[in-house]
């Protein structure tokens, strides 16, 4: 069972308290009713599913109930960092080369 740091509670809590909520940094278009089929496809259906670093959303469901973002390595299953919803995608990751 992983330990996940909630950026709102500012502490590590067991995985049982959290729920994954899919890939992060996919903003809902403000003019969504007007976007093209291609843009809707990219927004709604297309996901990265990378081997390695993934940016994803989690919810501290059985805690503060906040959604936040996390960077996780899908190979080692290790969390690199977590940050609050709405904060920019981090450009530098601690302990990750390149």
């Amino acid at each position, binding site marked *: 069972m992983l*330990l996940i740091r909630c950026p709102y509670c500012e502490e590590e809590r067991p995985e049982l308290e959290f729920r994954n909520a899919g890939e992060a940094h996919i903003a809902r278009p403000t003019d969504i009713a007007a976007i093209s089929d291609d843009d809707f496809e990219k927004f709604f259906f297309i996901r990265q599913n990378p081997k390695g670093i993934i940016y994803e959303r989690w919810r501290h469901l059985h805690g503060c109930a906040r959604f936040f973002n996390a960077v996780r390595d899908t190979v080692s299953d290790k969390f690199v960092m977590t940050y609050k919803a709405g904060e920019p995608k981090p450009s530098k990751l601690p302990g990750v080369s390149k």
Partner: protein
Amino acid sequence: MSGAFRISNAGRLTPARTARFTFDGKAYTGVEGDTLASALLANGVHLVGRSFKYHRPRGFLSAGAEEPNALVEIARDSARKTPNVRATVQELYDGLSAKSQNRWPSLSFDVGAVNDVASPFFSAGFYYKTFMWPKSAWKNLYEPNIRSAAGLGVAPDQPDPDHYSSRFAHCDVLVLGGGAAGLAAALAAAETGVRVIIADEQAEFGGALRFESGARIEGQGGWAWAQGIVAQLKAMGNVRVLSRTTAFGYYAQNFVGLVERVSEHLADPGHDVPRERLWQVRAKRVVLATGAIERHMVFADNDRPGVMLASAARTYLNHYGVAVGRNVGVYTANDSAYGAAIDLKKAGVNVAAIVDLRDNPSGTLIDQARAAGIEIHDGRAVTRVGGKLRVSSMTVQPKNGGGERTIAIDALLMSAGWTPSVHLFSQSRGKVAFNEDKRFVPGTYAQDCVSVGACNGTDGLAASMDEAYAAGTKAAKEAGGKATKVSKPKVDADEIWSRGMLGSAPGAGPDTTVKAFVDFQNDVTAKDIRQAVREGMRSIEHVKRFTTNGMATDQGKTSNMHGLAIAADMLSKPIPEVGLTTFRAPYTPVTFGAIISHARGPLFDPTRRTPMHGWAEKHGAVFEDVGQWKRAWYFPRAGEDMHAAVNRECVTVRKTAGLFDASTLGKIEVVGPDAAKFMELLYTNPWEKLEAGRCRYGIMLREDGFIYDDGVVGRLAADRFHVTTTTGGAARVMNHMEDYLQTEFPHLNVWLTSISEQWAVIAVQGPKSRDIIAPLVEGIDMSDEAMPHMSVREGKICGVPTRLFRMSFTGDRGFEVNVPADYGQAVWEALWAEGQKHGAAAYGTEAMHVLRAEKGYIIVGQDTDGTVTPNDAGLDWAVGKKKADFVGIRGLTRLDLVAKGRKQLVGLRTKDPRVVLEEGAQVVDNPNQPIPMKMIGHVTSSYWSENCGRSIALALIAGGRDRAGETLYVPMPDKVIEVEVTGMVFFDEKGERLNG
């Protein structure tokens, strides 16, 4: 007397404290503190089981958890039967009853032993090759027979009556293994004040000090020192000492699973103590002090009862006071077996000879053995043994060939060296390294742990304890401990064992056909491993699967390294290139009981009951499970079956009135200055212009345009909405709303609160509903003018606050009375009393379903399936056409969602009104087409409607609304049912009854 082989003045048990037990029905006496193995050996019993495949007689190989052979069934009563218990770890208690396994009719005469003679047919990979044809025979003929003939114990056939417990624990330093190294590490860490947990699988701490008679620490014997340290640790407030506790799994971020055997060793545990306790420990640092496991020698017939590990014989003597024979031989490739020979000799056992594969071995132990008068045959091998059910002789030959000599013995102690126990390290995802001593030791660490002592490849007591003490101090410091005074234990006398050998011994090489066992539990011989390589297996992972080497319940604790070395030799490759298999949890078998703990029966999943549950129970309700909820399904009266009860309930609701417990509905309060804006975005409907005090039926979509949930929403005030959801959707709708509010629309000033369990809901439906409620209500004008259909008022009922909704899920005049949950039953009872004056009935979920279907009201999740749009469901009117945005707005315009021919919800009337369709039944337009027919839809809801006097059904049909009046067909196994496509409303099409 507790056995003829018990040696007086040897061992640490108290002979006077006897314990009686039976094995295969025969009564024996042992001593408290014995294992079943030591007690049997004390009585001269070596034959304890039959092997997995060849049914060969087997005895005890070891004195510990690595035991592959001595598996027995322990039965406390008819329900408490545990198969495959290792006799070497099962502690003896008075009255213990054990049975041997895998033999018929008896242990000494086993019919299955014919497999041993027929063994050419059972060589490596035989399961894959022999039973391939015909394919169908595998399931019906081969597998059942193989399973019954080749197998271990029999699984119990009754529910487990024992109970188990489970605990989470946190600590700074977790020490796994309570031998000399583990104790030193725990002591070092504990002295800094950090929280320490130390666990060991044995009943007592001390590890190898149990048999290592040469060890002296701090001026006392090693064992005595260990007991003193344990007492010291137990007395410290910051230390938890867990004996009989096996760390079986090492998971991410230093999360370790341990199982504590709480009462398995007690004669009468009683019902208050659990059988086992699961510990889930999160540690800042882990110290692995898991020791090493002695390897056997791989030579012909090395599985004969009486042939065992030297350390085991030494343990039986030095700890249990049991001699494993009266005239023993020793076969070794390292020094440690000499210690066993010397101790046995001192205890009065004749040591016939030590056969040492090495040329001119030298060292203190060898000198001591010589001085004790033990004959040493160096440079020689034991090429085979005599005896059938027990070893009777060993045949000794120079290792490079030459004259044989047979020596009579009644036990043979062997040692090929020691394998570091890197199981937990490997489970932690650490990478092992093959070192210059030809051992796999911890290499690269993946987690915050450290290995010390024998499991780290460190030889000798003094070196191990130095390393462990330093590691314990360091781990404690890293976990936040304070530096403290040093009280490192001093080792006065030590035993250092040299390396030994890997692979098969002379006489069991590639040029032979003998059965030299590598894996005892799965009956894998050196020959099998070579055959696997000959048949093309190159990686040890393939060799393992082809031969099943190391795949038994002991996970190859004694066999892995030998198997690897033999494969590497055949492949002419260095061992690391052939690779070591990955160790996986559990380290030793774990019971299902310990894993599931209390989560069984009624505690498997929470049961949710509404505030009125007790009333429904008292009034004979039959309940159905709806998710975790218990819902009243129908209320049968005397003599009524379900059908009769539901018919009566449905008729009564439309004739007078009915009371229905709707408390399970999901309820969410949406509050704040932007509440209406938020509702506009989350639902397809317009909300801004809905007046306070009015209600609206809302539809919620996912972004893809499909219906996600629905429910009636009441606007209590400009900034306050009382939202209802489906029973099953309550939690996910809340999550869906929170997700959008927190991440997409955080600019909206809105607060969401789940109020599902705060309000009990009593639906009162039917022409008399107002007459029933009105006398109990204060402060609400319930006239049609003041409170029209689809409105909500706040006031009091029976003196308690209510949110009174005028709404209908039956099509008749109706209300839903919301009251604080604690008043639910009292208000229900008051309404019931009023209802009785009008002849009202209580109705359950089945009648609710029928009544709503009569009106064509859908149930999300039954009439929709996640691919249904509002238009498909005939609910286009509920989508705000002028809205610029709502979740799902873009999805609704996707090509597929606006295409012609989509499945649409319609009504179906069977041509024969008495026939009720099956829900889920497929619909076709031409019943005479060839199979597979083209299915154009399916029935989503179907009931007998007593109010309509016929069956009614809803169905999703391709282009359904354009097919009104068409005849379609529902093919069933025995007949084809003709149906007519109709509208969705079967009763009161004009909707006049809402105000009736």
